[in-house]
């Protein structure tokens, strides 16, 4: 089973040179730490910044420069600031290539639920619905099962959904899976030491196993 850091590390392998990327809060934020430095990519923050830099030192902290998680950050040489309408114009218009975000549930058709649990306080969808509706490539970082052991990869979502048929790839603590456009989770890689049988037993949606399933590689 992968740690959160390892999930982030595995997702970082999906990043390609020249991509503009939006990272959600939580595990996705960690992905930034594992993107190989030889790749030129730009991180977008939906509150209005292209070119998220590292966290500031004490003396660099500026209350007017934050990310979408409301954390103080820095800008990089070549950064650009814009308003929220422009930020989502970018997202909605497909200019942001890759969105990485967390999920509570994903269906075998690529539906995602990550904003609301009935009966619990609803905090809101923030920018997630815009992001999943428009990004060309959407990768979900998630735990394969809930704390009480229920699979979060389902035939269809039970929670209110954030977007329909939008997720392309999932990296969970157990596996890398792709969504088959015709329905089903295509198993691509196993976490080190995790058997196909275990993944099968913990995937409630249709799991497609084609040939030998390799173990994930970490450098």
């Amino acid at each position, binding site marked *: 089973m992968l740690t959160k850091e390892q999930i982030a590390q595995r997702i970082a392998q999906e990043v390609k040179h020249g991509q503009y990327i939006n990272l959600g809060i939580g595990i996705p934020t960690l992905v930034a730490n594992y993107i190989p430095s030889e790749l030129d990519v730009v991180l977008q923050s939906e509150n209005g910044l292209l070119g998220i830099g590292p966290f500031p030192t004490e003396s660099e902290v500026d209350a007017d420069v934050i990310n979408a998680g*409301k954390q103080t950050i820095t800008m990089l040489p070549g950064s650009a600031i814009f308003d929220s*309408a422009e930020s989502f114009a970018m997202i909605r218009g497909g200019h942001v290539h890759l969105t990485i975000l967390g999920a509570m549930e994903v269906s075998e058709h690529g539906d995602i639920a990550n904003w609301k649990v009935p009966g619990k306080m609803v905090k*809101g969808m923030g*920018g997630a619905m815009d992001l999943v509706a428009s990004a060309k490539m959407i990768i979900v970082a998630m735990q394969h099962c809930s704390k009480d052991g229920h699979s979060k990869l389902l035939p269809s979502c039970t929670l209110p959904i954030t977007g329909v048929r939008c997720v392309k790839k999932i990296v969970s603590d157990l596996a890398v899976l792709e969504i088959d456009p015709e329905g089903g989770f295509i198993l691509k890689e196993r976490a080190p030491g995790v058997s196909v049988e275990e993944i099968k037993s913990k995937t409630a949606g249709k799991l497609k196993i084609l040939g030998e399933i390799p173990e994930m590689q970490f450098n």
Partner: protein
Amino acid sequence: MILKTVKDAKEAVADIPSGAFLMMGGFGLCGIPENCIEALLEKGITDLTIVSNNAGVDDFGIGLFLKKRMVKKMISSYVGENEEFERQMLSGELEVELLPQGTLAEKIRAGGAGIPAFFTPAGVGTEVAKGKETREFDGKPYLMERSFISDFSLVKAWKGDTAGNLIYKGTARNFNPMMAAAGKITIAEVEELVPVGTLDPNQIHTPGIYVQRIFQGKKYEKRIEQRTVSTYK
């Protein structure tokens, strides 16, 4: 130029009545109109409908309005940093309309731009689509969203001139420019109010045509929600 200066926050918000439809700039606590918030707290009006991406925290920003029960309805994309909000929402005292952040931003932009409705893919097939028209363009489904215009927009900029031209700083820009354009009356508070002719016309973020009143804020606390620092570089 047409001069827009008012003395202070108190004068700027003097005619905002109970029941008004307000827009308030900011993302979290970043770029919020702190001085207008304080002046409205003193006025103590009620039954406000507020469009704001977030709802502040318990003891700062719009959270203070909630404490004083000034708000009837919040229209936001993300709330939950705020216990009083949660209490009022769960008890039914507070109405809440949650919208995707980009949809919220575009509804405001459209309002200022005289566009009554537009189509967006965000929210198709979700709860957000309830009661909204869905329509296909080039084989892909979209929701029709109506625009927002406020009675009063309260925005905060870094520098402004007496003609109402505004420049924002960093990510404190966020929702402020669209809200400035979407207000029937727009009140801008700035950290530094400068004479006309000081700002470069090429570098104005909000042209003065959108601003009816402007003043320099007395002080800015600029509270930080998630102070995150790196100890090495």
